[in-house]
């Protein structure tokens, strides 16, 4: 069976759920080999073994984190030269997509981004993508080189397949050319304690209709154990950080349940959420376009409906 490289997505050795999903997908295509960049590989090992990594290649060169993506792409190219994988799977976030883009050029290979599903057709992967604001589903294949695919969160249900992988330290050489864009400052965002927006099963989003007060949105989200999202109008007004924007130029999400409160449902917002399984909206305008999408809608003032609903949920849950 051919090797399939999986780039581990982690923070200081804490592996993100997306990596378990990538490893699960990799097993459909071949033997998963995990590539771990940075510190903390020993902490990550149990999680990587749980989802079937047959080997873990550790890259600890400090230059890999000081610069933007170019050195990581160089490193993966060197790993690929040794492992000769048939496919490379990377998480579909801003950094992952840029690494994949550079690799596609370096390896002269086809690239597919933002896959929401990957299946094996024989030994070659068939990807599913959601395009044109979620209005079409497209299945594609890569016809040249190593199949490089970036995969969105929730593209697969992680399935355990216990292995005990060995860690192999791998020394990479980073060229000066790859070290030209420097990260000169980094301000970490404070953790909210809520689920990650792109991974959450439930999202409650607020828009201009909140009038700037996100407290009812957050309280309702917390009663459901949900992540909080925002429309661009709310973000542009400075009411909520950009990292939580849902839509074309924010995050594309596909949760089990999406609740839009005080959001009109502009095409750019729909682009980021209309593949959600169940959609609920609270809007005081019964002609708001968001109601065209909903499974359940409440025409009313979110400042009344959300607090009452929060109270009711809390009551039922206790």
């Amino acid at each position: 069976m051919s090797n399939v490289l999986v780039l581990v997505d982690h923070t200081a050795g804490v592996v993100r759920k997306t990596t378990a999903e990538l490893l699960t997908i990799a097993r459909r295509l071949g033997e998963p080999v995990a590539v771990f960049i940075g510190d903390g590989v020993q902490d990550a090992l149990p999680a990587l073994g749980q989802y079937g990594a047959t080997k873990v290649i550790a890259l600890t060169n400090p230059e890999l984190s000081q610069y933007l993506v170019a050195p990581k792409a160089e490193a993966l190219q060197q790993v690929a030269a040794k492992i000769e994988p048939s496919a490379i799977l990377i998480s579909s976030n801003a950094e992952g997509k840029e690494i994949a883009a550079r690799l596609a050029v370096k390896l002269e290979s086809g690239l597919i981004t933002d896959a929401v599903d990957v299946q094996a057709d024989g030994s070659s992967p068939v990807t599913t993508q959601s395009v044109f604001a979620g209005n079409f589903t497209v299945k594609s294949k890569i016809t040249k080189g190593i199949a490089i695919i970036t995969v969105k969160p929730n593209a697969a249900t992680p399935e355990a397949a216990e292995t005990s992988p060995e860690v192999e330290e791998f020394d990479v050489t980073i060229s000066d050319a790859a070290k030209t864009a420097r990260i000169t400052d980094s301000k970490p965002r404070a953790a909210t304690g809520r689920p990650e927006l792109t991974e959450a099963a439930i999202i409650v989003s607020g828009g201009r209709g909140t009038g700037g007060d996100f407290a009812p949105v957050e309280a309702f989200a917390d009663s459901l154990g949900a992540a909080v999202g925002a429309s661009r109008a709310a973000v542009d007004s400075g009411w909520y950080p950009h990292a939580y924007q849902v839509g074309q130029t924010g995050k594309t999400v596909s949760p089990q349940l999406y609740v839009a409160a005080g959001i009109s449902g502009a095409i750019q917002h729909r682009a980021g959420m209309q593949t959600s399984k169940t959609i609920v909206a609270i809007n005081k305008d019964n002609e708001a376009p968001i109601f065209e999408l909903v499974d359940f809608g409440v025409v009313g003032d979110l400042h009344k409906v959300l607090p009452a609903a929060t109270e009711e949920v809390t009551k039922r849950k206790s």
Partner: protein
Amino acid sequence: MKIVVCAKFVPDATADRRFRSEDNTVDRAGVDGLLSELDEYAVETALTVKEAGDAEVTILTVGPEQAADAVKKGLQMGADAGVHVLDDAIHGSDAVATSLVLSKALAKLEADLVIFGMASTDGGMGVVPAMVSERLGLPAVTLGSEVTVDGTSVKIRRDGDTASDTVEGTLPLVLSVSDQANEPRYPSFKGIMAAKKKPVQTWSLADLEITPEQVSSWTEVVEVTARPARTAGTIVTDEDGSGAGQLVEFLSTNKFL
């Protein structure tokens, strides 16, 4: 300073976007198109740099005949010149191939600063800037939400998922900007009139010494399915104050509690 803005002509998102049934490629001819909205932020960045100092701004687009409209829009906003790479062989090319064409054109234009939008509004991959940087061997500072350009370097704020980073690089360089970077201007009447006299060159693949084989796509769409229409949902009003109760009942019935 010589600035080139890479701007794409895309099907209008508010119109009926579709695929060509014969080869599963995006229909760019039969649908109204325009300069990708997200590339307007790149044009605006270029014009701001130009206004602060000495720079010449060229709009570069790769696309079908109608893509000339994207170049025109950039000129109307205030760019100085345009280049349109037009060749039938480019139809159906993927991002890797597009990045090759852009790179060859950029090398010919000898750009000091290449500015991209964050993603095209049709394909939306957000990969072409990194590919061009890779091909030209230039540094890339991408997804700038705040951009500072001086005579020799570029500094951006990049808002990531877990941190907000400052990233810097020295010219010549590839830059991409997000829709947080600025507020794109509308063309003025004067701008629209002036655009008519600005030079636009049309280049073919041969002009860039690229063969048709080099722009063949390395990915293939095997199936396109329109999303089934959503069945109409239940809509209740909160006039009598029962909205929250009914909402929670819906959530409970559907096992979200």
